[in-house]
């Protein structure tokens, strides 16, 4: 073909084909997406602190390991109550003159997804200690430590946020670990990461590729399937109360030998799991969030977790049944009314 030998025609043809396809698959979809998607009415704009925290999140490349997208597949259920939607990202605008929009959806999940971390793990004390060195709380973690977001002070001033760090992580340095403004801002950002409630008229997209219901068929012939309490404890409780059930002195209370855990009356126990607890703040323990409610735990799952806690680390209390838990839950409900 003659025009192949004409460099102007040849390269123009290649360029036009490429630009044409680019417009079709990138620019038009991007523009259309901007036009049709609006923020959900329940979505809260970030506070000033959270915005500053987001900049720190960007600067330190957190997106390299943490995604912020709950995919519409069943395995992502643990990261949010519903799959993320285009509207969830609609509020995000260009960062500033120098920097591009930071949607921060991510492509690699070396660490957990953070879409809903504000609900799941919004505890300020936990986050600060974890940022100072993740291995204080999660032994196996490979996340970097961020000690430069903290200062060491001999005598913390009034209003300083002192972070609970075991001595072995201080490498012999004398003094208290105090969170800098940046650390507090970063935690404020993490706390702000919550999935917005959908308005009633919008139905959330479904989670696809549900796990095959082998358990259901197994259960049909009478044998009740055992829910793995240890596994659920690993997902929901372990980050604070630790794998050995001993918690972290001064930050998270131990469950080993805990009165609440071992008591025959489980009313308070269930209430704490479902709705959180603040009664021991005077002892230096941080507030516990409504873990059970946030994670949508079923009575069977709560019972499994409780039984794990009641029979591990030397604990030896009577097992509870899902029905016991259900009764307490109903009692709590009626009390609230």
């Amino acid at each position, binding site marked *: 073909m003659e025009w192949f030998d004409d460099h102007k025609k040849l390269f123009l043809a*290649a360029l036009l084909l490429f630009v044409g396809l680019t417009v079709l*698959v990138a620019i038009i979809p991007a*523009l259309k997406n901007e036009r049709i998607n609006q923020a959900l009415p329940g979505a809260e704009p970030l506070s000033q602190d959270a915005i500053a925290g987001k900049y720190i999140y960007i600067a330190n490349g957190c997106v390299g390991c943490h995604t912020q997208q709950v995919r519409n597949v069943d*395995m992502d259920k643990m990261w949010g109550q519903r799959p993320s939607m285009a509207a969830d990202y609609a509020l995000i*605008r*260009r960062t500033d003159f120098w920097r591009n929009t930071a949607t921060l959806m991510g492509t690699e999940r070396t660490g957990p997804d953070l879409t809903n971390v504000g609900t799941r793990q919004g505890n300020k004390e936990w986050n600060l200690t974890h940022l100072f060195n993740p291995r204080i709380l999660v032994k196996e973690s*490979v996340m970097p430590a961020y000690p430069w977001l903290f200062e060491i002070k001999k005598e913390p001033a009034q209003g300083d946020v002192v972070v609970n760090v075991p001595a072995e992580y201080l490498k012999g340095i004398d003094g208290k670990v105090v969170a800098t403004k940046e650390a507090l801002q970063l935690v404020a950002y993490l706390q702000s990461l919550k999935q917005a409630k959908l308005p009633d008229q919008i139905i959330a997209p479904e989670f696809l590729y549900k796990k095959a219901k082998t358990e259901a068929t197994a259960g049909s012939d009478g044998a009740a399937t055992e829910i793995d309490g240890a596994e659920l404890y690993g997902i929901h409780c372990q980050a604070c109360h630790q794998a050995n059930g001993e918690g972290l002195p001064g930050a998270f209370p131990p469950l080993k030998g805990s009165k609440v855990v071992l008591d025959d009356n489980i009313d308070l126990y269930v209430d704490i799991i479902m709705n959180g607890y603040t009664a021991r703040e005077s002892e230096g323990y941080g507030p516990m969030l409504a873990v059970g409610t946030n994670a949508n735990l079923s009575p069977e799952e709560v019972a499994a977790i409780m039984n794990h806690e009641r029979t591990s680390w030397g604990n030896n209390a009577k097992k509870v049944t899902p029905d016991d838990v259900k009764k307490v839950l109903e009692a709590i409900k009626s009390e609230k009314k």
Partner: protein
Amino acid sequence: MEIFFDGLIVFSLAVIIFLAIWINKRVKGILKDMQNSKKDFDKEAYKNQISNMSRQQLSSLLDVLKNRKLSVLKIVILSTLFSGISNYASAQNSGSGALLSETGIIITIALLLIPIILVMALFAIRMRKLTRNYAAKNDLTRAKKFAEYLKNQPEEEIERDITGRQQSLDYSLTHKELSGNLPAQDTKGILNVKPDMGLPFVAIKKKAITRKPVDPQLSKLVLWYLICATFWLLFGTTIGEYVGIKFVAPDADHLSWLSFGRLRPVHTNSVFWGWASLGMLGLGYYVVPRVGNRPLYSYKLGWYSLYLINATVLLGSLALMDGINNGGGEYREYIWPIMLLFGIGLVLTLINFLKTIARRATKEIYISNWYIVSAIMFCLVIATVAYVPSWQNGLGETIVQGYYMHQGVGMWFMLFTLGLVYYYLPQQLNKPIYSYSLGILAFWTQILFYTLIGTHHFVFSSIPWWLQTVAIFGSVGMVIPVIAGTTNFLMTFKNGWYQLADSYTLPFFLVGTIFYFTGSMQGTAEAFRSTNLIWHFTDFTTAHSHLTMYGIISFYIWACVYTIVPRMTNNEAPQVTVGAHFWLALIGLLFYTVPLMYGATMKGKMWMEGKPFIDSVVLMAPYWLWRAIGGTLMWISHLFFAYNLYKMMPSTAKVDVGEKAIEILQSELNVAQSK
């Protein structure tokens, strides 16, 4: 897992079909033999039998015949008659169907196939024994008939036939028929007898062929591109190595500038824009003028471009370590003022190349220049789309990101490198590219399909479902350009495979080509929704990007560097260190990727089962260690590469004995003449 089982099924079916064909052939053979053994010996059969017998057999037969009248006939004949002529009628097994998409079913079939194969194998062994018995029986009848025939023939005739046959068996050449008895005189320069150098520690490979000297200005420019590229390779992979170690030892340091999140993009960007881009451009500066038979339009522009790109990577790396980045899009971490320098550098190169091509001496534009110039144009388009803010609010940023990150890889690195291979591979094999038109087909289909596939990095995200499907479709379409390219390169190797053994550049080309095929096909496989479930977000992506950016792009660049630098400098790298570079890089890459892919598959399955997240971190620990080991080997190989490049640099001190002798004689002559 599904793919594994698919493979197992295909393999099992192949085994079954093979066994069926074999048995079929065996049975046919027996039937034919039975027919044969019933026939009487005629003239033709007798002739055949004689010509099939060995020398020893013939002489003993002759003896026997001679003694026939005196004693009782005893004939022992070993038969060599049988060769079953096969008739392929394959018993096709049916087994594929729509149901195969279910993992459970695939596993069941795979498990069922194992006993079937076992039974078939046992059956085959029985059949073999049976057919052998039959064959022996047939041979015996045949031997009796042959003896009978011999008895009834006139003795002289048989004797004549046998001695005739013996003579032809005895004949052999003296090996002097063509050469004669005189010693060889090498007037055509064909012989290459090396002086005795003792036992070679490494195989001796061919030296680069000396060619017309390259314009010193051009070779200086190209060399500096390659030197800078090598610097960024060392820098970038040192960072990469350290980042890999951090997976094993997360508390290796606590400095903000060296923290994982900041260093990771320093690694990716410096090997992308520093190493691979500068390497490709340097090699491109050699190719573009060469294939048009005209010098480069402007050396100055070439130098400016080099300065600007180096400045980009230097400033970009510093900015990233200081925590200044663009918001976290993969390979888009440099902020726009820094990336702008890279853009200007590319524009200068584009102008330079286009002007050079416009002044070309050839009528056609060689295919390499299609790829190279298009890659530069497309890279500029991609970067513009990625950095212009007009369409990047909310999810728009992610749609653009998907487009950008994959076009950067496919339209910049891959397209440019393919252009280089279309020049350097035929050069090194000393033969034209197998098919020009396959190259053209690959060119247009690459543009058509590759442009579509960006969003396959965001399958199952909130990006429109149709756009994800288009991306998956495009990923499948990539099969066409990849197979076209691979075929073209491998067919260019055709009849030149023997050169592989005594060349130190061709192995690099071959590895690049193999990874081009497997790496790209793996990309297609990863794009499906079902495989995305397992592999997305895991370390599989990291392994894949190293298989491609390292296995394809880097290996090809090294191949081209080892091809071209000796031609410009007349210096070659020591073979030992080239070999060390090659093997460490290849083995390191495999240590790096294979454990990561295996671990990532386990990790994905764990996530699907809903296990606690931290369990998947614990699971990965040994595979991350393997990655660090592989990475270390790769890193050491780069030290060897840098050393090799240093050894290939032009030298002034070295004296070429022949060259110098001519010079001395010439000067003496000049002195004599001037007197």
